[in-house]
């Protein structure tokens, strides 16, 4: 299981990247993250919503109420222009961290 500090830090870039693929809603975002991480990246479900609201207040994403296939109301989120910029920055920074780690690991085994 991944440490909670890392889970928290990765929440924003993951949400932005998922929403970059199209509009989505809280439950689907959580399921997608669970599936893609093989269940290793787990959020307490309810904790996603304060994060989504915070990102919305910061102008990164926007929301609208709609209906599910069964007619139940559902809040959909989508990316705003500011969110695309933030996502690009996140990718740049996480790639940098990843390349530094990968480089150090490589040196270790050389």
């Amino acid at each position, binding site marked *: 299981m991944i440490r909670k500090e890392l889970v928290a830090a990765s929440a924003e870039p993951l949400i932005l990247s998922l929403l970059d693929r199209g509009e989505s*809603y*809280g*439950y689907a975002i959580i399921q997608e993250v669970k599936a893609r991480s093989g269940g290793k990246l787990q959020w*307490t*479900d*309810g*904790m996603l*919503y*304060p*994060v989504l*609201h*915070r990102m*919305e*207040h*910061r*102008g990164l994403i926007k929301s*609208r*109420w*709609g*209906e599910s296939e069964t007619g*139940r*109301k*559902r*809040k959909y989120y989508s990316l705003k222009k500011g969110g695309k910029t933030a996502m690009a920055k996140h990718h740049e920074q996480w790639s940098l961290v990843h390349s530094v780690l990968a480089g150090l690991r490589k040196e270790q085994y050389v």
Partner: protein
Amino acid sequence: MFDLEQAIADWRRQMTAAGIKSPVPLEELESHLREEFEQQVKSGLSAQQAFETATQEIGQARALKSEFEKNDASIGARFVELTGIAWGVIAGVFSLWSLLLLFTCEEASWFGRMLGLVAIALTVSSWRYGYRVLPIIRHQHVRTLIGFACCAASIVWMGTFVKLILPSLIVLPTKVDASPTRLMVSFLWAWTVAAILASAAHGLKKVASRQDHPAVS
């Protein structure tokens, strides 16, 4: 026999009791809870077990509330909110003091006293209901900036009034008879303008937190 609607109503009551009172988080969390419940039932759990699992997955009400509170905890937003409230209190105290003077001063006219009462009514209304006419600004930084500008405008306005307008009201020798009423009413209305500006800073946050009513009911 397990009653899902009753269980959800009880769960909502627990969330409200813990402090999650705004409709949006609750609606959104309930929507999530129902999806998770259905998923758990599909996976083979009984309705009772599925509901218990779904509520555990959502998390504890207090922990959720504390996470939601962080959304409004930026230093800038807090500063603007406190400045707006402090300035509103100062404006309120000075307004009431001016009104008291207006009503105890024998030379004050009834028209002046009525104007004073209207000013107080406006101050109270702006703080109580003013948010209803304010625009919804969802971007927190923009809201904070506008709130800050309103507080600054309120302070600058009172500075201008005291430095430039008030002296001209005091030194009008030909208006000596009219000056007590005129002076106090002017002072009261100056504070009313300041209070209304300060209430905008407070109201913008209030309207933003209430705006999230679901479009689909």
